[in-house]
């Protein structure tokens, strides 16, 4: 036993504080929970480098991969928040569809006289945020599981989007955002820089703010967090609202990159984004993994899909591969002890 220490020698610096930069990096890596993701990313790149005879390592292809990964990465940065709190958000497609239609109709277009200019960015984010807010309120106040709430909401929003859109393909006539996102002042497309920035901001929010830490407390043990004084409902609603905001931003970028807006913009997004989040190591049980995991997951999945395209795999079979990856990733990251009987 160590000798008794009293309060007075409290300022003594313990051993674990000191250490070289290498040790600090090592410790950070061990704790950050992305070592497995880094290794997988390298492996996937290496496998496809062999499979495509190095085509996937060309500068041009790397640019393509980064641009392709950008929007899913932003969406994943949003969606993973709802998984961190122990829920899930399946309303992604509906929210993106509705935001896309509104973005199309509010920007300068062929169908009406609207033109809000660059205000379309905050407006898109606000619409997404409002959708998320409603979802969060329904989930927490009506006390229904998040997966069915968000599934229902997704159908509602998608239905509304199609109803408003009426099968028009809205071409945008304002290409300022489009030019911006494709510019490469830093060597890579701005859209990728934006995605990276978003991931960093969300990660900072998770690590260094009170609310961010409460997300993890709720995901770790909701009942206990409530007992200790965390305002659980508020935290959960916030997670869904922030996720919604990021879907809104994703929709703005998506629409502007394509130059046209339709309600179909959101189709086939949920699947890859959830897969990316799961592959990144954000456990469905909640409380584990952050925005960096979502980012790495997106990168892994994009490299995988890009590799399959380069190897000319049947595009429909690619979705099937994603499905298998999703189930495998969830199976690996799920903490079954915490869940008891799985239903």
């Amino acid at each position: 036993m160590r000798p008794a220490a009293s309060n007075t020698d409290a300022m003594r610096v313990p051993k674990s504080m000191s250490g070289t930069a290498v040790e600090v990096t090592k410790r950070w890596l061990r704790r950050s929970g992305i070592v497995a993701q880094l290794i997988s990313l390298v492996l996937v790149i290496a496998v496809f480098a062999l499979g495509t005879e190095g085509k996937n390592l060309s500068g041009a292809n790397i640019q393509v991969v980064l641009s392709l990964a950008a929007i899913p990465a932003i969406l994943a940065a949003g969606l993973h928040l709802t998984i961190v709190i122990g829920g899930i958000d399946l309303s992604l497609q509906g929210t993106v569809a509705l935001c896309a239609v509104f973005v199309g109709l509010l920007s300068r277009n062929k169908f009406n006289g609207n033109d809000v200019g660059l205000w379309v960015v905050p407006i898109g984010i606000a619409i997404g945020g409002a959708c998320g807010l409603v979802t969060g309120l329904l989930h927490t106040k009506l006390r229904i599981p998040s997966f069915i709430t968000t599934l229902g909401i997704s159908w509602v929003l998608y239905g509304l989007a199609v109803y408003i859109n009426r099968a028009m393909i809205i071409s945008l006539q304002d290409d300022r955002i489009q030019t911006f996102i494709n510019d490469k002042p830093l060597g890579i497309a701005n859209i990728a820089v934006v995605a990276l920035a978003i991931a960093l901001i969300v990660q900072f929010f998770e690590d260094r703010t009170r609310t961010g830490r409460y997300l993890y407390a709720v995901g770790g043990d909701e009942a206990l967090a409530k007992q200790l004084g965390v305002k659980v409902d508020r935290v959960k609603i916030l997670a869904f609202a922030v996720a919604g905001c990021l879907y809104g931003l994703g929709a703005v970028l998506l629409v502007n990159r394509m130059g046209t807006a339709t309600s179909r913009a959101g189709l086939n997004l949920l699947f890859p984004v959830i897969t990316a989040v799961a592959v990144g190591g954000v456990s469905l049980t909640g409380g584990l993994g952050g925005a960096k995991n979502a980012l790495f997951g997106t990168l892994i999945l994009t490299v995988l899909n890009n590799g399959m395209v380069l190897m000319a795999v049947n595009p429909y079979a690619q979705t099937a591969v994603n499905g298998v990856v999703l189930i495998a990733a969830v199976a690996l990251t799920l903490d079954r002890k915490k869940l008891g009987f799985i239903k």
Partner: protein
Amino acid sequence: METTISRTQTVVLAAEGITRRFPGVTALDHVSLEIRSNEILGLVGENGAGKSVLTKILIGIYQADEGRIWLNGNEVVMNGTSDAIQKGIGAVFQEGSLIPNLSVTENLFLCHEADFLQYGVLSKRRMAAEARRLLLPMNIDIDVDAPVASLSAAAKQMVEIARVLWLSEKYGASNPVVILDEPTTVLNDSERDTLFDILNKLKRRASIVFISHRLQEVLENCDRIVVLKDGQNVTDMPTAGLQISEVEKLLVGHDFSGDRFRENEQLAPNEPVTLKIEQMGKAGAFEPVSFDVHEGEIISLVGLVGSGKEELCRCIAGLDQYDTGSVTIDGTRPRKGSSRAAVLGGIGHVPIERREEGLALNLSVADNINYLVLDKLKWAGLISSRLEKEHARRWVAECLVKTPSIGSACAGLSGGNQQKVILSKWLSSGVRLLILDHPTRGIDIGAKDEVYRLIRKFAKSGIAMIIMCDTLEEDIGLANRLLVMRERRLIGEIDASPGHKPSPQELIKLVV
């Protein structure tokens, strides 16, 4: 031993006439408790004596139906744990209240991070430094940035104690009260010594309520001891000079009446062996044990929580895997670790959590009673609703289940009647061995008597039973034989046939 306090002690926290009722039971009946400054108070009592309910009332998780709480002479109402902690009262429970995926630092300051904010951003460095400062007196060497899930049970306890102290210091409580709910059951010997070292030091600035089953450590380390029995105060006295045997006597009470458990209906068991356990063991849960249960015999497993008796029963019922040995029921060996094989072999299990594990609450009484015998209620290969009704009616009458109709959902029945539905389900299925896990927990006196009657009746019909009870009297009264378990070992076997019943005092010596 540090039992004499030189300074005059003041009463910090006083509870007076606390009564708390739950459906069917009175958990606390006008209980009073005084906690003085700078002392370690031992709170002892059997399982279900009301210790944890009292704790939960003191820290505001439950509200008392009657009675008052005084803090430093002022009457107070505790509105939840965070309110209690602001008044300087906190508890550390066995199950723990740390969020496993958060780090030690984050758990220490959860919901009280305001001091560490800079422009809305948390200063991790300052938090970690403060956490180290708080943990220094706790004598543990842990990485404050590591997730709590990676800590040992002892370290988790220390973190929790540190949190309670920090919060009361922060809210300006001069003499915080820390309630420790059976902290030593998860600790090894050296960790236990460390804990008591720290508690004795903490005593200089705090009061500690120490709840434990282990009378030895209570007497050695506490200044005063309060004994609860069946939700009532039994005694409150200094520990100086107190003998264990005196406390044991108080603990089990003396109102041991002759026929509460229908002993006169008890019969000697038949010769044939129903259940044979041979060298059955599970690493970390219980050492290999061997015993037989005869036809119509009631065996009671006696021991504290953590003695291994629960795990033993789960293994016999096929709910858990065991490592060595074998279970033989009526000459056959069901596959181990399979509840299905155990049930098919004739082993039934009446669980302690009857709502969560015993009943399909939204289904009807008839559905629940008939569940195991559906195959016998068939007519031309199809389940016949006429046979179903007949069977359910017969067993509702047999087991005295009080229900509006056999079609009513089980959720609406009282605890006692729910228990009788579970018993009917097993008894009607032709079970050979029934494991009863606290069969009378939380049910009222009348229903208890009926459950005893059923147990006697079916023992008479040849069903063997293994039983774990709420009180030692119940164990002694019901059983033909008592098996005593302590610290994962079967340490003794006591005859409890009519006329040879041991006294609770004799038994408790072995148990604790």
